[in-house]
């Protein structure tokens, strides 16, 4: 039997990781809530953002936490452009076409990264990479703690944005009833693209928060995105609160199943939850929508 301190530490670590998972899931769930499609390029976009952080650090020595200021707007722009001028026109408004186009984008991004950077796993070296903070009996990794706090701060900002600003209101209007919103003078294509841009910006922020402690290779986004799919399905598609709660739950489940089942089988726990939730409660634990 494992000592309770070890389990306690695993839970704490899982919660910290879950914070970043929640941020990644947030972008996915927002896009789903508004466009009603699953963005299969989400993982590849995250990988691209992680490489962008890597390049910033290696080329001009930019600290990941400072790079956020440049990368978040850059990825917002990229996301906006891709939705407005690639996904939107190419899919002719058909749902299965959007699925295929985002799948195509993920294949392109992932393999372009493979062609450019080869399959080597890379990381960046920051002085605070291994710093720890003592909280009671626990030793918490400082970058992971920062990532946890920052993820929830971003979620709060995003929530305020959706509630208070005109753009936020337009996004919510389009999510509820796009024809009605269009009749009220809202440019639906623009709002779709803005939503997609926000999703990509969330990924850029997540990448900056992840890089101090994680490694990157052209496929590393995939591991995160399946986790993010699970969180989104678990929390209820389109629900921000659900994504936050789901992220924390999944972080803890992954950490514990890794502890009990070992590294290679650890991920199974997540997939089983994913399949079970999809089969038993596809509307998520909150059951908000059908």
């Amino acid at each position, binding site marked *: 039997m494992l000592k309770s301190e070890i389990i306690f530490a695993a839970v704490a670590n899982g919660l910290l990781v879950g914070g970043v998972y929640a941020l990644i899931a947030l972008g996915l769930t927002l896009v789903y809530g508004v466009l009603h*499609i*699953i963005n*299969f390029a989400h993982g590849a976009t995250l990988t691209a953002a992680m490489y962008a952080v890597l390049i910033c650090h290696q080329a001009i020595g930019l600290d990941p936490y400072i790079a956020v200021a440049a990368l978040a707007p850059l990825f917002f722009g990229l996301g906006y452009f891709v939705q407005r001028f*690639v996904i939107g*026109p*190419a*899919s*002719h408004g058909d*749902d*299965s*076409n959007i*699925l*295929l*186009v985002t*799948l*195509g*984008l*993920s*294949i*392109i991004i*992932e*393999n*372009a*990264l*493979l*062609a450019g950077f*080869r*399959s080597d796993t890379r990381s960046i070296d920051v002085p605070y990479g291994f710093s720890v903070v003592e909280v009671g009996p626990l030793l918490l990794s400082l970058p992971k703690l920062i990532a946890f706090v920052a993820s929830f701060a971003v979620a709060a900002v995003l929530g305020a944005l959706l509630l208070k600003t005109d753009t936020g209101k337009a996004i919510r209007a389009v999510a509820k009833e796009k024809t009605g919103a269009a009749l009220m003078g809202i440019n639906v294509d623009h709002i779709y693209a803005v939503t997609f841009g926000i999703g990509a910006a969330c990924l850029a922020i997540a990448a900056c928060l992840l890089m101090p402690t994680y490694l990157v290779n*052209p496929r590393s986004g*995939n591991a995160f995105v*399946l986790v993010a*799919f699970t969180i989104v*399905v678990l929390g209820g598609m389109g629900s921000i609160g659900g994504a936050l709660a789901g992220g924390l739950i999944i972080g803890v489940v992954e950490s514990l199943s890794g502890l009990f089942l070992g590294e*290679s*089988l650890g*991920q*199974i726990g997540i*997939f*089983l939850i*994913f*399949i079970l939730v*999809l*089969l*038993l409660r*596809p509307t998520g634990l909150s059951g908000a929508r059908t």
Partner: protein
Amino acid sequence: MNQVSWTAILGVAAALAAMPIVMTSNVALNFVTFAGIITIAAQGWNILAGYGGQFSFGHAAFFGTGAYAMALLQVRFGVNAWVALPIAIGLGGLVGGLVGLLSFRARLRGSYFALVTLAFAEVFRILANAWTFTGGAAGVLVPLQVGTANMQFADKRMLYWFVLLFVVGGLCLTHMVSRSRFGAQLVAVRENEDAARALGVDTLAVKLKAIVLSAAITATAGSLYAQKFLYLDATIAYGPWISVDALLAPIVGGIGTVFGPLLGAVVLLGFGEVTKTILGNLTGGAIPGIDLVLYGVLLILTVAYAPRGILGLLQGRSSARHGGNP
């Protein structure tokens, strides 16, 4: 129409069977054999998604099951390859039925169905990678025992013709399905599932039949792959590459058509090889992944400009999208 298609299938089969007369190099034969295997995997996907409208992103689950069953039956249980092949195909169909039963009963459609199939393929990949029975990360090696009795042909042309047999079988099967009552019900489910149910179609049964057939065909491709290369690991058998190839070929060739998967597989793999060779010569070394970048671009271009694939372009834009069969 009916007569035309049977004649066309016969003509294509004869032309493909004559290929080894022109192509004598091992490289060319390997290429067409591999293209044949991908075609079969794609024919499986085409039944479920092209005719039934259920977009699976995880046909690797069926391909890998066929491949592992074929290899493990021989290696672990000493079963003869000719006996192992039908068992492997059956097991693939069984896995398809299970996945279908679970997901269709839960009424998963569209994005949800794509996601759950993707997740099933990943679960299989992780399990196969961890389990010692499947050889774990080291994979499984089928011993080389050349002889027709072991389905290991000394003549590379024989393997090609053997694979071609299944490709032509897939063409005939697809044609028969598209002409049958079951095929009509399947198309009804694709076009409007609720309307089909209202008209008395047992949509669950139709979708289940389609996924079992689809999975069995794709598992055949996996079994043939195992027998051609005599080596498997989890990333080959259950990796996302085959899920992508199986869906890309019919979409590029012409989704929901008899010849789409074959045409798409040949065009895609041909393009991939040519690009890799040209770019490799230009830059003085192979660039990994460059052929897949091209696949992704082709997928988006097809969806955007040629929703009925190459066949649709060849036939002109006169008939409606998702129109009849060639």
